[in-house]
């Protein structure tokens, strides 16, 4: 099935409570599939087409505020509209899952695949000091698997999580193994597991407030400090990545999502030529596998960050490497997908000087 359809199937099966979305190419299949599957008849999951992405993300705020597992999906321009809501949700410490099937920007841009929303995704995106938990799937299987993982991390840390995909993985068809249907949390379970949620104030507790406002700047600094402690914990415990052929490698490619798959093919081409190249595929873009890059860097003659953008993740790779090794970027952008040959050629030119 398509990557976008896998998101829909996985959402129902992991027991999500609600999906709120607005159509945009190249991810409209997510909501179309959900509407076709009518999960409100099977699991009781709510699916609603909102009037805008602004409304969708604020519906997530309302649903998450009730302790429910709620999600949306969109593509780049729609995700830009959601930034206000994401900032509010990070500020109110609300968990949710947002899927971004990235297309080329800026502006209305193109409907073709891109990875040019990296900065927006991993650096916060909206106003204020906050982070999203960002997962980067490289297959349709991971599109499905990361729905549950995204929810789990979001609730564990009470923070919005994002699946940062792209138009290629969203539209691509692959075999997927779906997990069996899990039960949705009951209202009682929600209240028990999320004692902070607005579920209706019982006699037994004080009333709950979901808010991101604090006018006392000293108190607000304390709150921000608490957020930063949470992010340090994420960076300590939740970094996920995959390495391939790095043990004997002289060169390293760092690439996520579609670019990681293209780079894997490029590495085969280069190895046939006798150039030993390994791949580091970040699975979590935030938290970023900084330490692993630091560990591998001294063994390398050069590192190439391959991404379908003009060079965004390359900045984080350079920050990790701290100038110890040459770090270059390669990528087609604006909706153009690079080929394995182009990646291989770029590595030779930029790192070896061929």
């Amino acid at each position, binding site marked *: 099935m398509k990557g976008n359809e896998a998101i829909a199937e996985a959402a129902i099966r992991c027991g999500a409570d609600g999906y709120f979305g607005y159509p945009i190419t190249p991810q409209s299949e997510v909501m179309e599939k959900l509407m076709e599957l009518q999960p409100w008849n099977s699991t009781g999951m709510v699916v609603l087409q909102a009037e805008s992405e602004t409304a969708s993300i604020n519906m997530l705020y309302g*649903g998450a505020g009730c302790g429910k597992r*709620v999600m949306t999906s969109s593509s780049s321009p729609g995700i830009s509209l959601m930034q206000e809501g994401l900032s509010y949700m990070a500020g109110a410490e609300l968990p949710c899952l947002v899927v971004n099937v990235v297309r080329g920007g800026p502006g209305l841009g193109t409907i073709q695949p891109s990875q040019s929303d990296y900065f927006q995704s991993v650096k916060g995106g909206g106003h204020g000091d906050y982070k999203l938990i960002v997962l980067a799937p490289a297959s349709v299987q991971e599109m499905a698997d990361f729905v549950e993982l995204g929810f789990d991390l979001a609730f564990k840390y009470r923070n919005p999580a994002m699946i940062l995909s792209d138009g290629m993985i969203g539209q691509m068809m692959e075999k997927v193994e779906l997990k069996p249907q899990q039960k949705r949390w009951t209202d009682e379970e929600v209240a028990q597991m999320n004692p902070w949620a*607005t579920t209706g104030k019982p006699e037994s507790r004080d009333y709950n407030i979901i808010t991101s406002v604090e006018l006392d700047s000293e108190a607000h600094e304390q709150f921000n400090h608490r957020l930063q402690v949470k992010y340090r914990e994420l960076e300590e415990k939740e970094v996920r990545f995959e390495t391939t052929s790095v043990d004997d490698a002289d060169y390293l490619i760092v690439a996520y999502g579609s670019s990681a798959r293209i780079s894997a093919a490029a590495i085969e081409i280069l190895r046939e030529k006798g150039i030993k190249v390994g791949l580091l595929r970040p699975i979590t873009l935030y938290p970023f596998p900084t330490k692993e890059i630091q560990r591998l860097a001294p063994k390398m003659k050069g590192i190439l960050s391959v991404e379908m953008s003009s060079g965004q993740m390359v900045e984080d790779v350079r920050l990790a490497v701290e100038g110890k090794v040459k770090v270059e970027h390669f990528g087609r952008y604006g909706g153009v997908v690079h080929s394995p040959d182009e990646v291989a050629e770029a590595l030779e030119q930029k790192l070896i000087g061929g």
Partner: protein
Amino acid sequence: MAEITEDIKVAENIVHKKSSVLTDKVMHYCPGCSHGVVHKLLAEVIEEMGIQDKTIGVAPVGCSVFIYNYLAIDWQEAAHGRAPALGTAISRLRPDRYVVTYQGDGDLAAIGTAETIHACNRGENMVMIFINNGIYGMTGGQMAPTTLEGMKASTCPFGRDPKTDGNPLKITEIVAQLPGTNFVTRQAVHTAAAVRRTKKAIRKAFEKQKDKTGTSFVEVVSTCNSGWKMNPVDSNNWMEENMFPFYPLGDIKDV
């Protein structure tokens, strides 16, 4: 005097007491502001219906952003204008709960117009309370979508000129036309009788929610003596003379 006051504080003399849903926090509103009265009425309705444990409120951005400090129900504080979107999800994910949104005119009728119209048009099962004082109070008296023609505000200091500033918006008449609303009314709290009518309207809006037949919308035309730069008495008079002719009181829709 003090002794006499203490003497009369005995159970048999109590004719009116504070709603148990109201907290002990001192409200931050300016003297003469309508918010405090509407908060009290909302608290009383929730208490009288016995639904404190079943009500989830959505607070706005504006002067009443801190309504959650005053009513002891579960609250969510929305981004500016987005309360109906939050309310939509809360209502759909917790259909066993009463959902009430509380917004001012800038919140509901300017930045949140799309959310207001579409929530009402879908007929989301919630009570929407709309405080219309024709001005942005919290940010210091700027022009609101409901500012009357000729009315002065800090961003129309010579009076609102429809040619350049646009026309005041009758959002309540608009939502009344939408099939999703089951009760739309416009009230005020400037006299004892008006306060009683507003309480009845809020009660009716909540009662309507039992049938799950759509959005119940209560506008309260209100004063903002700080924003209007008038004392409370003058504000009430000014509201009667100027606001009511353009925003007439009474039920607009009841189905």
